[in-house]
């Protein structure tokens, strides 16, 4: 019973919402435009820093959000400027390196006063003003099967804000992907030169997609940070790969794919961990080995998924029937 509760709790947790958001951003990049952004965690980390530092220094919440968005937008412009004129693979190389640069910069001792170096920024330094706004009581609240704190850290308050943001971004993705703007992006995903020959400025559209997706990534970073703290090392390459995994799991270029993918990914991770600790005796697999073991298992499951259902759970098999 505890295990089922843990899975249900993980399914709606703010981190799950944060990953869903980051994956919606990546869906703008990859699903819609075909851009291989391998540095989504870098956009998230910039969003975290932008928000946390602004608010820690006494800035209001809205300013923190704007700074986070601006950081991600500028980062997107700088990344896209040299790479978007080149073939797709170059963007992948540059983004993965740039995201790592952000992380290394963040953890460097020289920036200790600004970013807190490798320890990061404590949650208490920037969460206060957000938690003050909470309409929920300052205690544990049980709703249906779930029990969360009302206002602090992983709270009902953050949950509501996080999932509302997810809903808004889904709405935005839905509206834009079914507009002429989205049609140009899909065209670019299929064949850039064809779109050029039809009179569209491909470079500008790719830039727009990169910035939009990155900004949504920054918002994901804020939600993550408000549930935990700012930790540069939590936004390393694995985070980017998880976002990719759950996007492909749910189905790229679908509307609900990122959300379903995030819920299933984090839910199944908890499930595998729980089952393994129940069924495998301590002598074979101790507690420290549990985490890597379950990640491996989830990884294998996902590999199977990508091999046998490459379009993801919500994807349309027909779209993959032809490849040229």
């Amino acid at each position, binding site marked *: 019973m505890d295990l089922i509760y843990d899975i249900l709790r993980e399914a709606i947790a703010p981190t799950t919402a944060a990953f869903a958001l980051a994956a919606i951003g990546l869906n703008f990049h990859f699903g819609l435009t075909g851009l291989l952004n391998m540095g989504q965690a870098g956009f998230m980390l910039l969003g975290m820093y932008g928000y946390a530092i602004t608010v820690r220094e006494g800035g209001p919440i809205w300013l923190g959000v704007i700074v986070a968005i601006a950081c991600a937008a500028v980062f997107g412009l700088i990344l896209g400027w040299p790479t978007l004129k080149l073939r797709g693979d170059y963007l992948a190389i540059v983004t993965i390196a740039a995201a790592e640069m952000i992380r290394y910069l963040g953890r460097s001792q020289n920036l200790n006063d600004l970013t807190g170096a490798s320890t990061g920024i404590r949650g208490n330094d920037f969460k206060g003003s957000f938690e003050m706004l909470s309409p929920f009581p300052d205690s544990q609240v049980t709703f249906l099967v779930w029990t969360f704190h009302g206002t602090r850290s992983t709270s009902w308050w953050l949950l509501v804000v996080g999932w509302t943001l997810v809903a808004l971004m889904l709405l*935005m993705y839905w*509206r*834009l992907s079914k*507009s*002429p*703007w*989205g*049609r*140009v992006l*899909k*065209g670019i*995903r*299929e*064949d850039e*030169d*064809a*779109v*050029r*020959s*039809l*009179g*569209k*400025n*491909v470079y500008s559209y790719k830039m*727009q997609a990169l910035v*939009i997706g990155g900004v949504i990534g920054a918002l994901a970073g804020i939600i993550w940070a408000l549930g935990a703290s700012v930790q540069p090392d939590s936004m390393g390459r694995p985070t980017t790969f998880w976002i990719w995994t759950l996007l492909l799991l749910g189905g790229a270029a679908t509307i609900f794919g990122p959300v379903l993918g995030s819920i299933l990914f984090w839910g199944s991770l908890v499930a595998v961990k729980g089952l393994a600790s129940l069924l495998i005796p301590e002598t074979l697999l101790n507690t420290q080995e549990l985490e890597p073991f379950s990640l491996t298992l989830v990884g294998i499951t996902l590999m199977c998924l990508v091999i046998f259902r490459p379009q993801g759970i919500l994807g349309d098999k*027909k*779209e993959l*029937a*032809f*490849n*040229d």
Partner: protein
Amino acid sequence: MTDDVFASVPQEPGAPKPDPIVVADNVHRHFGGLTAVDVKHFEVQRGAITALIGPNGAGKSTFFNLLTGFDKPQTGDWLFNGHSLKGVSPAKVARAGKVRTFQLTKALSRMTVLENMRLGASDQSGENFFVAFAKPLWKDREEEITAKAHVLLKRFKLYEKKDDYAGTLSGGQRKLLEMARALMSDPEMVMLDEPMAGVNPALTESLLDHIVQLKQEGVTVLFVEHDMHMVRRISDWVVVMAEGRIIAEGPPHTVMQNTEVQEAYLGAHMDTDLSEEGS
């Protein structure tokens, strides 16, 4: 009609035309030491069908890419409707009214045939990021272009396929789709890169008819082709390229009799009897 237009045109490389829509001068493109295109002077008559032919490696496709901004030459200038298109991006060339198709068809596979068509239309305010949010602002234009797409799809016999993914079409149907899509923006000139390559014979006739119909609607057509039968059937004027240069120009029925053209295609010693050589 058009025969009269060409009556006064000398049958020589770089011949001036009475009413040129494209004029190119000294276009030179080399890749390292290899000269791909070296065109001294080239004109395309407005409202006519001009064929660009030549043996493999003659530089036809490269010249096509240069004229449409997909490739940049080392030297040269070229005008479209009197405006220089030198250094202009492919997108702007298309917006100026000169739309091209590709030798290897670029149907956008994971989009429906109708979406392919809509993408071809110009002046869509909904293609702006901020306008895209407000459907009422682009709904009318969307209906307009959808209606236009329906008309074109019917004409190109693709209407029944409009909701299918373009990736499910046959090679010939993709060529048709690409041509129809290029017409969505009402171009003044279309440039077709090997429109017949990979098209099955049953579709060839209808493709030819479509190209002739374009001319009747006042669109200028320039196409690259290997199939001499097709060139003879529909073109008003033929330009022959070999080794990057224009070596001959003339009406389709006489240009192939030019000895330089025959040499370019068959080699310089075609009339030498090999059996007597060396004995």
